[in-house]
């Protein structure tokens, strides 16, 4: 009869698939971090160094992943793109959270008319397809990585604000939250000590899944040529440059494509894995 809120058995006996996935995801992400840091320790050709005689060359000893249309080393570009691509995704997510978190929390806590107005405003932005709104914003700002970060963040935050609001709302309706207020805790303390701890774990899930989507969106923009500008090494931009040569030099297309997929996969695995770990529901088996 006694239901536990944070069923710890799940954490203790986490034997579900999520565990494995989470570990894979973390390993992949760590792999990217190591890859991104490797230029500090290993001697790697500068990403912009051109070897115009060795253009579009396939994998070889000197260029393990081949060269691009300007004879630049694809591996080096791939590695130097790690901080750019992942960094941009995290920066975007940060920007999204910077708006969505206060927006969602304030709307949920204030309730009533404030909540309604804030959510209507979010609805308005949400009604436009994210990518298109981002395109429009970038169109007016001029193409650059910063512009696409701003564009994506501006078009993306409302859905996250909604999620945050829903989380805070359901967290604040728990009996113990209202009990804490009635037995003397100040509103601020209720938010910080009783609501936030409930919200953080699911938020971690949302953040990693959303960062994955943001990474996809950013690379899509770069692929369209309106995100990161050459010669900045960035996976989406590398794909954009690889496109004309994709029948001649498929490695140019495969390598960054796989990198994007792996990075997005890592974030998704982490998100799903966390969700599985936090999942207190235990489905019946039929």
């Amino acid at each position, binding site marked *: 009869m006694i239901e536990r809120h944070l069923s710890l058995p799940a954490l203790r006996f986490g034997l579900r698939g999520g565990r494995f996935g989470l570990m894979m995801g973390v390993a992949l992400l760590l792999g990217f971090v190591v890859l991104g840091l490797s230029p500090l320790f290993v001697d790697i050709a500068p990403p*912009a160094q051109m070897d115009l005689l060795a*253009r579009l060359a396939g994998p070889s000893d000197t260029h393990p992943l081949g060269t691009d*249309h*300007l004879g630049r080393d694809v591996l080096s570009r791939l590695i130097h793109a790690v901080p750019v691509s992942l960094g941009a995704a995290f920066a975007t997510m940060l920007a999204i959270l910077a708006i969505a978190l206060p927006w969602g929390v304030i709307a949920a806590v204030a309730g009533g008319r404030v909540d309604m107005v804030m959510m209507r405003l979010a609805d308005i932005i949400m009604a436009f397809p994210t990518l298109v709104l981002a395109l429009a914003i970038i169109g007016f700002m*001029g193409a650059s990585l910063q512009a696409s970060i701003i564009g994506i963040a501006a078009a993306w935050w409302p859905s996250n604000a909604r999620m945050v609001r829903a989380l805070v709302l359901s967290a604040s309706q728990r009996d113990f939250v209202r009990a804490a207020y009635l037995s003397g805790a100040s509103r601020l303390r209720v938010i910080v000590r009783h609501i936030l701890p409930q919200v953080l774990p699911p938020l971690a899930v949302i953040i990693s899944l959303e960062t994955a989507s943001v990474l996809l969106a950013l690379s899509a923009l770069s692929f369209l*040529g309106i995100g990161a*500008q050459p010669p900045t090494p960035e996976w989406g931009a590398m794909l954009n440059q690889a496109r004309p040569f994709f029948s001649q030099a498929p490695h140019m297309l495969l390598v960054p494509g796989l990198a994007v997929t792996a990075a997005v996969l890592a974030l998704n695995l982490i998100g799903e894995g966390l969700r599985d770990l936090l999942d207190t529901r235990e489905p019946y088996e039929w």
Partner: protein
Amino acid sequence: AVKQDRYSVDPEKFTFTTRRPAAQIVETAVKPDENFLPAPLLFQDWDYADGTYTVTLREGVTFSDGTPLNADSTIAALKLYDTGKSDFLQIDQDSFEKLGEYQISFASETGSALVIENMTHRGTSLFGPSEDRAANPVGTGPYLLESYDPNQQITVVRNEAYWGDAPYVDQLTFRFIADDNARLLALQNGEIDIIGEVTPQMLLSMPQDGSVVLHESRPIRYVAMMTNINGEAPFDIMQDRQVREALAWAIDRETIASVLYAGRGEPAKGILPGWMFNLGDTHTDGFGYDTAKAADLLEAAGWTLGSDGIREKDGRKLTLRLVAAYPNVSTVKPMPEMLEQMFADVGVDIDLVEVDDSGVYGSTYLDTGEADLYLEFASNNNTDPTYLLNNLFTTTTPWGGYKFFAPGAHVDALLSDGRKAQTRDEVIEKVRAAHRAIVQDDLVAIPILMVPNFALSRPGVDVPMSEYADWIDYGNVTMVNQ
């Protein structure tokens, strides 16, 4: 296949936007000859004296609706043109006079001696009277509009009543494929026969096994960097001519030419090709590739090498914003990245902006002067020798010109004198002087390459190329047996 549907149904905008497809349906008054001098087409003969043009029309030409081309219909067509928003010819509307059944006269609003020369521009094609020029364009050309599927394709069929030599091809279909890559792949895949608007990337990635054939004209398009000589800080570095010259010496044109445009480009000394208008190429000296000289020039200008390999002066880094946009990035790609590398070798840091978007280009960078260098790919696609220089480098155009790279009064004077000069020689004289000022003395345009006009086709197709893309005669494409 061509890149974009520029067809507009707005009658007032129609003239300038139909371009290639409409070129088969309507004709201009004159056409460019080998040396880019106007040659007779609908105008048989013309004469200019004391500000008045007297024109004799070709006889026996009829519009596709049966209206004969005569003094009345020609004046109507020219007036129709001028009622549009594109007052490009600047003909004095009140000056039209019918001198005979096939003879008219008119005058220029601005006293220009080059109105006829400007009539080789496809935008000035003569349309016959028609209620709806979009659905039913009436022209004198070799083809008739068959069907128009907006943004997808335009099909034209042979006009059996054409006054001139009948074209070979019965029917032409122009497909619009915006994506450069898709255009090439579609050609490779046998879905289309010819593609226009060929980019260097397409040439780089073009299969070398003969499954795609390259057609080219004489070099006509220039690739050059316009320099912002009137910018405000932080875009004021290019005001120093020494820096401009240093950059000019830092470009390895030979390498670029051999890598890009399938090796078909040539290192350029200017932005007008020497063969055009018999300009010759002795009036400019050009710049070689000499990094030491470039470094010396920068040193002399006070830019000394910093520890990170980037030059600096008074604590300020030598970072220049290079915008590559006109007419779209894909026409020059990947040249900006190569330039960036070359400038890095002499200690110049480039902040590269690629915008595939003339709108942003104009409003964000060009009109505001918020860049140091503007990489452009264009040509004097007109038989008016002053056309390009006047449009880009004077302050006397109706919109005030692109003030950030106009050298000033002396070039303004040269070009306006040139436009009003009574003899062709005098015109060319002035153009040479202005050209030299622009690309050599004042160096507001750093020339890089001179590039032909390209088309790609499947094997077995011979395309009669023209330097001027709008004048490629697709109707006379021939099949050659191999």
